[in-house]
């Protein structure tokens, strides 16, 4: 985890460093900010709360540590309206993950397969219990691209708290590295870990 040590720095330097790190971080990434200045700590906390960014914090011997997780890419610049009007309730997650291995659902007619995939992703949002994780590999990564037919549904799912892992090798292969702006680009080790530790794997 990235650690930004702002010890010895006065306001607003620690806040500027925090904001920069948030901007550079990928969605889902966490980082730590350390400060030895209580005012700076209070101000960063206030800034994060105002901008609806999740964080945890601790203090020992006059050193404050904030652990900050970037949720959605637009959050910091998002209109206040967006996060004020759409109150996101708390969703419970089950012990299963969904693996997207293709941009289509099932085998058969391509057009039908794409249509089914849209309906499938849409239906996930209606589940009483959400998946613990969603992984995307091979042609599945194309679902996460900005121009994908399911991108809006995926963004909503991300806001509901479902983490996404995209296979980085696959994203590179399909030249989508810069077009995937949700979730986290990840390696095979992490994807294998997530899949092997899941109670159930759902594959559309």
């Amino acid at each position, binding site marked *: 985890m990235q650690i930004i040590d702002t010890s010895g720095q*006065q*306001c*607003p330097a620690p806040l*500027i*460093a925090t904001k920069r790190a948030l901007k550079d971080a990928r969605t889902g990434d966490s980082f730590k900010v350390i400060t030895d200045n209580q005012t700076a700590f209070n*101000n960063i906390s*206030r*800034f994060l709360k105002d901008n609806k960014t999740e964080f945890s914090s601790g203090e020992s011997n006059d050193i404050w540590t904030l652990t900050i997780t970037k949720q959605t890419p637009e959050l910091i610049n998002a209109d*206040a309206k967006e996060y004020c009007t759409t109150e996101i309730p708390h969703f419970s997650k089950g012990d299963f993950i969904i693996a997207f291995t293709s941009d289509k659902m099932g085998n058969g007619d391509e057009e039908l397969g794409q249509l089914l995939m849209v309906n499938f992703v849409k239906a996930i949002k209606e589940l009483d219990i959400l998946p613990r994780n969603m992984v995307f590999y091979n042609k599945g990564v194309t679902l996460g691209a900005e121009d994908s037919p399911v991108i809006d549904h995926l963004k909503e799912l991300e806001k509901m708290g479902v983490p996404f892992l995209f296979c980085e090798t696959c994203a590179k292969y399909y030249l989508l590295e810069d077009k995937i702006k949700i979730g986290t680009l990840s390696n095979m080790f992490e994807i294998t870990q997530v899949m092997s530790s899941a109670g159930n794997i759902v594959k559309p």
Partner: protein
Amino acid sequence: MKVDLLQMVDSGGCSAKISPRQLEEFLKYLPLPQDPNILVNIDTHDDAGVYKVNDDLALVFTTDFFPPVCSDPYEFGQIAAANSISDVYAMGGTPVIALNIMMFPSSKLPLEAYAGILKGGYDIAAEAGVRIIGGHTIDDFPPKYGLAVVGYIHPGKIITNSGAKPGDLLILTKPVGTGVILAGQRMKMASEDDVNLAKKLMKMLNFSGAEVMKKYNIKGATDVTGYGLAGHALKMARASNVSLELNLNKVPLIGDTFRLVDEGCIPGASFRNLDFIEDDSHFNTDLNYSLKMIAMDAQTSGGLLMCVNPEISDNVISDLHNAGLKDASVIGNVIEKGERYLYLNN
């Protein structure tokens, strides 16, 4: 030895003010002196006290001092003096005499710096027609400087925080952002041009703004200093028992102030001011966060915020522009007292 006063302070200028919320707590326990000649006291959180001498004359009395806002002693003296005198202008008075208030670390700084600060103060006082007739210096670190100023005013022509009327437009005479730019200078994020512009604005007396207020018989005004635009607007709204709507997009800004705030350059004083106003304020749901925090920015020697009847507002604006206050703008309006005192919009 080249003196750099900024090396000595963490927060300079009006950013160094005590939290307004704490101040209100302390002031609650002090009895207000009862005297029919006291025309304005701290009850309405005005910029200065006013004491009636006779039916034609009252004294405006105010003081202000703070740690350095810039490196150069002479410029610091100029800014501190302009800021101290400003409160007299904000009440519609004519500043007359002043005393120096100085804290100076004589073991840490050469006496040239002391002389430089005083010279800056004298030069601005002279520009305002104020005679400095004495003062007091304490050996102290870091340095602080300002004036206690006395001005004349006609008892019937006092401009106060309590003079805002529903329907009035709010006009601000100087652009906002001195706190952000000074913090940005410390962080090496602010351009030299912006720093110079901020210094020029801080040295600028509120004389011409006050002249325009007198000409148009304006009753409600304040100067925008340490509590930021929103903090001073709140004080005015409370004192006048009205609500104020601020359209923050209309607020003139110094140079790159918006970009700096957007990059996180938000001085600590802004968060103190936010604490002070938020319970009494409504933030529009689409209010831009950076604009909101600019409204909290502590100003040093900021402009006048005046309440102007819309029928004369065009004339007031054009007079202000002609007097060299080319950024003077309508930034909001006064409405009947609503659920909150302040309504902040984009």
